[in-house]
């Protein structure tokens, strides 16, 4: 499951500590839509993505834009502040109890040979893969996508050839936020969530992105695969509660020997 999610995570290039908290807001939005308006998360995720897109653009325009030239540390601190606000405003609004969205597909399974597959997870997986492919197509085939990659690659150069870099950054940030919003809504049917889920989600996704390689789409895919397999193995051979030790150790090793990640370009 993590694979589909991390495909989406991988494209975000901004050091975004509020990542997981944006996902949690996506989950709560899906919850509100489904309990108040009876809208199933499998349709509601479109709205979640739209709202989170606006949130992302607002954060980029209002906050990150102002300190683009400041040292990297300041961006980290800024996003940490945003993360604190998002997580705890969720706590204030929705309370600490874990919630669960009841999707139409709950408890339905299908048999695939010897395996029993939870239909909700399967649908989420398929939608996530489709979204990722769409995202890939957008980034590599469309004009705006090419501009985003150009601005990410060399912001100054893009500025020189007449790109409105700030607008492009805002769109990129918005799309990233929309992706996590959609992801949150999609996993909400089978993953109970509470406001405090944001920080661990951020840390895990950083883990995956670093291991796979910053800004590399296949890196995020295989990084996610690697982390989930390693954690599952860790849970079998060590203790279930120690499974994260494996991924953090992996992270430290990767950081030391190949900070660009397994699939990233070598840092010069």
């Amino acid at each position: 499951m993590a694979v589909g999610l991390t495909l989406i995570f991988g494209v975000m290039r901004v050091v975004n500590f509020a990542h997981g908290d944006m996902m949690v807001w996506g989950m709560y939005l899906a919850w509100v839509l489904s309990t108040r308006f009876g809208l199933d998360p499998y349709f509601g995720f479109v709205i979640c993505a739209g709202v989170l897109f606006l949130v992302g653009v607002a954060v980029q325009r209002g906050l990150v834009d102002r300190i683009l030239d400041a040292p990297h540390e300041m961006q980290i601190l800024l996003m940490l502040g945003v993360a604190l606000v998002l997580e705890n405003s969720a706590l204030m609004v929705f309370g600490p109890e874990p919630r669960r969205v009841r999707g139409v597909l709950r408890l339905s399974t299908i048999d695939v040979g010897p395996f029993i597959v939870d239909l909700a997870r399967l649908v989420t997986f398929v939608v996530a893969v489709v979204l990722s492919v769409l995202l890939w197509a957008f980034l590599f085939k469309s004009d705006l996508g090419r501009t985003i990659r150009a601005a990410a690659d060399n912001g100054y150069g893009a500025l020189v050839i007449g790109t409105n870099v700030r607008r492009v950054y805002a769109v990129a940030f918005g799309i990233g936020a929309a992706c996590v919003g959609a992801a949150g809504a999609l996993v909400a049917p089978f993953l109970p969530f509470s406001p405090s889920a944001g920080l661990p989600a951020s840390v895990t996704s950083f883990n995956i992105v670093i291991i796979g390689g910053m800004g590399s789409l296949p890196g995020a895919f295989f990084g996610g695969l690697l982390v989930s397999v390693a954690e599952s193995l860790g849970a079998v051979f060590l203790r279930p509660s120690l499974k994260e030790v494996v991924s953090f150790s992996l992270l430290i090793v990767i950081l030391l020997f190949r900070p660009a990640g397994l699939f990233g370009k070598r840092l010069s």
Partner: protein
Amino acid sequence: MTLPRVLLAAALAVLLVLPALPSLFGSYAVTVFTLIFFYGFLGQAWNIIGGYAGQLSAGHAAFVGVGAYAAAVLSQDAGLTPWIGMLVGGLLSAALGAVIGYLGFRFGLRGFYFVLLTVAFAELCRLVASNVDAIGGALGYYITFTGNPRHFQFQDSRAYYYIALGFMLLATGVVALIERRRFGMYLTAIREDESACEALGVDTFRVKLLAMVVSSFLTGMGGTFYAFYLFSLQPSTVFGIPLSVEIVIRPIVGGAGTLLGPIVGSFILSPLAELSRAYFAKGGWIGGHLVVYGLLLILVVLFLPQGAYPWLVKLGGGRFLGGGLRPPSDTSPQDGAGKAGARSGPS
């Protein structure tokens, strides 16, 4: 009257007033002040590596945790007085700091990558502590109350007040010493431009490593206070990311890389945290104080990137010293030049 003298006078005045306060205050105010001092102390310890050297560590909770567990376990299971256990905890934390620093600096991790490394180590510590049953596992470790000062336990909460005050002054003394020496200059130089510093022949690796060790030793000692002030240790709180954030946010708000920044930050944030916690708890809105934290952090980064202390000095300097805050000859890098010094240095 030059600025250092003003500061000295202010510090002396504060020193004379603070010990007398507990006899005037109720127990709640004593608690708030104890927290101010304690977090001021932790912030000051962080300031050495995070503020002066500019190596943003977001995993300082690891050192608090190691120090806390070491002193608590030694006291409960081996009967060693925490007054000595405190040093053992400090040394263990320093060892951990040396490992993190060695790996991080030897492999040249900077900025975001160093942040992640420290977070990863803190999380590893948390996971290990929650899985070792000898120290209570995920349930936590509890300290039996004896009220014996030999066990770092006191009937009177004012004792903790004085100890926390002493801790804060100790750390500030250490930082003041560092700041005046060549070592402190090296740290600031590394923060401002590491490559240039290296080109001038400074062994930046050794300097950063030493800063990390000193910082983690002090933080580890603070762990003892944490353990015996709260009487219980939970891996998720004592090693958790939220505690690391608490440690980092005070020097940042107060002014990272300045002598009094962490203390000013603690005097701003700790009462704010207590007040807003009490205020929001009344309305049944948990988490409100952390929203306030987040907003404050955003505001500081956007509008006051050097923190409150340099700003206060500038304000006070303009008013009381006739604008003669810094004579042109004084170009020492240590005061005023905060993290984003290049962006808007005080003139």
